[in-house]
């Protein structure tokens, strides 16, 4: 279980009333895919956070899940999953 997902700051997924908020189905898929890959690789959210930070810095005006999708591509490339 990924228990270390940020709850504050720019790398924290958006929430409403404490619940994660997905504004479109693809956002949920992107998040679920990220968690599934981390779990499969035996990694925690910490392994993903640097990619997310870089994506946020690269395109600060994009939405959280647009940034997450970019970070996910970078993570998949780094781990050589494809």
């Amino acid at each position, binding site marked *: 279980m990924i228990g270390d997902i940020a709850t504050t700051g720019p790398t924290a997924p958006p929430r409403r009333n*404490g619940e994660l908020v997905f504004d479109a189905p693809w956002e949920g898929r992107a998040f679920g895919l990220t968690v599934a*890959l981390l779990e499969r690789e035996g990694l925690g959210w910490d392994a993903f956070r640097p990619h997310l930070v870089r994506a946020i810095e690269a395109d600060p005006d994009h939405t959280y899940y647009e940034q997450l*999708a970019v970070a996910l591509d970078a993570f998949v490339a780094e781990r050589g999953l494809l």
Partner: protein
Amino acid sequence: MSDDHHHHPRTQSPIEQRVHALEELLVDKGIVTHEMIDEFVARYEDDIGPLNGARVVARAWTDPDYRDRLLADGTAAIAELGYGGPEGDHMIVVENTDEVHNLVVCTLCSCYPWPVLGLPPDWYKSAPYRSRAVREPRALLAEMGCDLPDEVEVRVWDSSAEARYLVLPQRPAGTDALGEDELVALVTRDAMIGVAR
């Protein structure tokens, strides 16, 4: 793999296409399955909702004065953090100790403090949970993975519109070095209902 996932009922944005293509590639390679992703999305949407309650608990763990206010007047102390509203008044916070474990149920219906805990899980509303929490709480807890030593007293609290209960779990051992934000991540909904330690 069939082409079932490739129908395009409407135009997808580039980012949406990219995420979709990545999922398909990783599934085709056998690295993940669609079902795994479904499960994680559901788990995070439905089960890890109670961030507000977790903040209340983490504050109580790190600020003794806040803990005292929380136990004296739950509604007011929770409102200090900005949480409240319908279904969130008449809050009573009960504290777990080495000697006492608290369990919350609503035997009549499904009263639940949603401003701090999000939406109730399905099992909270189920008839077996509602009856067994009162009749045989220890056996129910054990089945839910919460084994309590015999010497720990179990107190069951029946929520209603006039009194909504929230369990203040014990701070886990070995967390002295953690700050409030880090502690938030350790607090689970189940612990705040009392079906986990």
